[in-house]
C-alpha cells in the first residue's frame, strides 16, 4: 500500500467512527448539538480524505476542480440560506426537501456512470462489465428516484400545494402501484441484461412509483413517511457506494438506512399504527368513520373566553396540552404570552407533550422552544400523567386524539391501546377548537362529552389573543 491509500484508509476509518458517535450523540438531549457538529466535521473530513487521495494518486484536473467548486458553492449556498430562513413550523417539509435532494444526487451519480462508462483507470473503473455494477447502478437509480419524487410529494402535501386526490383512496391505487412496481422490475432486469436504453424507463417508472406510493398518504402519517424516505436515501447512498466502490459511502448509507428504519418504527409505535397500515391503509379517516366510536355528542358545554380566563385566574396549577392545531395556527408565541402572565401570578404552568404531538414527533418541543418556553416546563406523557388529578385547569390547544379517553376505556375503539394523556382527571378541562370536527382519526372524542370539559370555539391564535385581553382586564400578571 502506498501512502495516499493509507492516509485515505485512516481518514475514512476516523470519519466512520465520528459519524457513528454523532448519530449516537444525537439521541441524547445533552450531547445532541455537539454530536450534530461532530457529524458535520466527520463529513468534511471525508471530503478532505477523498480529495487528498486523488491528489496523491491520479491528480485532479483543473477542469474537474472548476466543476467541483461550482457545484459545491451553489448547493451549499442554497442549503444554508434555506436552513436559516425557513420558519420552524415548516420543519417537516424542509427535511423532506433536503432528503429528496440526497436521493436525487445518488440517482444522478448512477445515471452518469451508466450513460458514460468512465475509462478504466487503476481501479478498473469500467462499469457495465460485471453484473454487480449493473445491479448496484439499478438499485441506486430505483431507490434514488423513489426517494426524490416521494419526498417532493411529501413536501408539497405538507405545504398544502397538493391535496390527496379522491381516486387514491380507492383500491385503484393498489392496482396502479402494482403496475408501476412490476414495470420497474422489468426495466430493472432489462437493464441488468445489458439493455442500456431501458435505464430511462427505470428512471421514469420508479419516479412514478415514488409519487404513487406517497400521494395517498395523508395527515399525521406524513412524518412516518418522511422518516421512511430518509431511510431510503441512506439506502440510495449505500447503493451509490457500490457504484463508485466506496466503503465509507456504504457504511454511512447503511447506518442512516438502518437508523431511519428504527426511528420510523418508534414513530409508528407512538401513534399506535403499524408501518403496513401507514403505507397501504390509506388515510385512517376513510375507513374508520363507519366503525365504532362514531356517534353524536350529547353533553357539550361551550363557554366564553371570559369564563376561561376567570377559571385560569383562580387556578394553582395549569397544564397545557398543545397539538397539531397550535402548530397550524402558529400560535406558540401567543400561548407563551398567556402562560407568562399566569406564571407572574404564581400559577404553576406545565406543558404536556404527547410523543406524537405536532406534525412530527419532537416537533412540538422545537416549536415551543422557539417561543422561549423553558425546557424544564415541557413534560413527557409518562411524567405528566400522574399529575393530572392534582391539576386545576387543563388547556387543550389543537390536540384531539391524544386526549381521547376512549383509547383507555373502550376496547372496541380503533384508538384502543394508544397511549393518551389523562386530561379528564383534572378538575376543569378547556378545549380550544375551531369546531366539532373530529380529529385526524375521525373518531368521536369522549372527552368533549364529560361534565368537566368546556369547549372554547375559535381559532387557537385568536382565542389566545382574546385570553390575553381578558387576563389583562382581570389584572393577572400586572404586578
Amino acid at each position, binding site marked *: 500500500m502506498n501512502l495516499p491509500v493509507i492516509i485515505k484508509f485512516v481518514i475514512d476509518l476516523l470519519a466512520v467512527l465520528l459519524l457513528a458517535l454523532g448519530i449516537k450523540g444525537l439521541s441524547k438531549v445533552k450531547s445532541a448539538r455537539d454530536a*450534530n457538529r461532530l457529524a458535520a466535521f466527520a*463529513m468534511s473530513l471525508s471530503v478532505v480524505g477523498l480529495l487528498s487521495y486523488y491528489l496523491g494518486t491520479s491528480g485532479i484536473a483543473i477542469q474537474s476542480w472548476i466543476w467541483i467548486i461550482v457545484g459545491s458553492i451553489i*448547493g451549499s449556498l442554497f442549503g444554508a440560506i434555506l436552513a436559516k430562513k425557513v420558519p420552524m413550523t415548516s420543519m417537516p417539509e424542509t427535511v423532506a426537501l433536503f432528503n429528496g435532494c440526497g436521493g436525487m444526487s445518488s440517482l444522478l451519480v448512477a445515471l452518469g456512470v451508466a450513460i458514460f462508462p468512465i475509462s478504466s483507470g487503476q481501479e478498473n473503473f469500467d462499469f457495465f462489465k460485471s453484473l454487480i455494477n449493473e445491479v448496484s447502478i439499478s438499485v441506486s437509480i430505483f431507490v434514488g428516484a423513489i426517494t426524490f419524487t416521494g419526498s417532493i410529494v411529501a413536501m408539497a402535501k405538507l405545504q398544502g400545494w397538493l391535496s390527496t386526490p379522491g381516486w387514491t383512496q380507492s383500491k385503484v391505487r393498489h392496482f396502479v402501484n402494482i403496475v408501476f412496481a412490476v414495470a420497474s422490475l422489468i426495466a430493472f432486469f432489462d437493464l441488468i441484461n445489458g439493455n442500456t436504453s431501458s435505464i430511462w424507463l427505470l428512471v421514469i417508472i420508479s419516479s412514478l412509483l415514488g409519487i404513487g406510493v406517497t400521494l395517498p398518504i395523508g395527515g399525521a402519517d406524513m412524518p412516518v413517511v418522511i422518516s421512511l424516505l430518509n431511510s431510503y436515501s441512506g439506502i440510495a447512498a449505500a447503493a451509490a457506494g457500490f457504484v463508485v466502490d466506496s466503503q465509507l459511502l456504504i457504511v454511512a448509507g447503511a447506518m442512516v438506512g438502518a437508523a431511519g428504519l428504527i426511528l420510523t418504527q418508534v414513530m409508528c409505535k407512538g401513534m399506535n399504527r403499524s408501518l403496513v397500515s401507514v403505507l397501504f391503509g390509506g388515510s385512517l379517516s376513510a375507513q374508520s368513520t363507519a366503525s365504532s366510536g362514531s356517534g353524536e355528542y350529547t353533553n357539550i358545554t361551550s363557554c366564553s373566553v371570559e369564563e376561561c380566563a376567570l377559571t385560569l385566574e383562580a387556578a394553582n396549577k395549569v397544564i397545557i396540552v398543545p397539538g397539531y392545531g397550535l402548530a397550524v395556527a402558529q400560535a406558540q408565541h401567543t400561548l407563551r404570552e398567556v402562560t407568562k402572565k399566569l406564571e407572574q401570578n404564581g400559577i404553576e404552568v406545565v406543558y404536556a407533550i404527547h410523543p406524537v404531538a405536532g406534525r412530527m414527533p419532537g416537533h412540538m418541543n422545537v416549536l415551543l422552544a422557539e417561543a422561549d418556553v423553558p425546557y424544564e416546563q415541557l413534560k413527557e406523557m409518562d411524567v405528566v400523567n400522574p399529575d393530572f388529578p392534582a391539576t386545576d385547569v387543563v388547556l387543550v390547544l389543537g390536540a384531539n386524539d391524544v386526549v381521547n379517553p376512549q383509547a383507555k376505556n373502550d376496547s372496541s375503539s380503533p384508538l384502543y391501546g394508544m397511549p393518551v394523556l389523562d386530561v379528564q382527571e383534572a378538575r376543569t378541562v378547556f378545549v380550544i377548537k375551531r369546531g366539532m370536527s373530529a380529529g385526524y382519526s375521525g373518531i368521536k372524542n369522549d372527552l368533549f362529552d364529560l361534565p368537566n370539559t368546556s369547549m372554547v370555539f375559535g381559532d387557537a391564535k385568536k382565542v389566545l389573543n382574546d385570553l390575553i385581553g381578558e387576563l389583562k382586564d382581570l389584572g393577572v400578571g400586572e404586578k
Partner: protein
Amino acid sequence: MSFISLLWVLLLGSLLGLELIGKVPPTLHTPLMSGANAISGITMLAALTLIVKAEGNVPLLIIGSISLGFALFNVVGGFFVTDRMLAMFSRKPSNKK
C-alpha cells in the same frame, strides 16, 4: 475491494445503525431525523469521484456537478437546520431561569 467484502461492510454498517439509536426521547425525533438526513448526503463523495474520474467528458462533469450540488444542499442545509433546532433546546437551561 471485492464485492463480498463490500457486502460485509454493508451488513456491519446496517447492524451498527440498528444498534446506535435504541432509546431516543421523543423530543429528539425531529432533530435526529434531520441530522441523519444530512449524513445521507454522504453521496457527495460519489459525485466527487464522478467528477474527478470524468477526464474531460463534459456531460459527465455537468452531471457530477449537479449531483454534487444536490448532495451538498442536503448536507449543508441538513446540518444547519438541525443545529438551529438543537440550539433552541440547549439555550434554555443555561439561561437565567
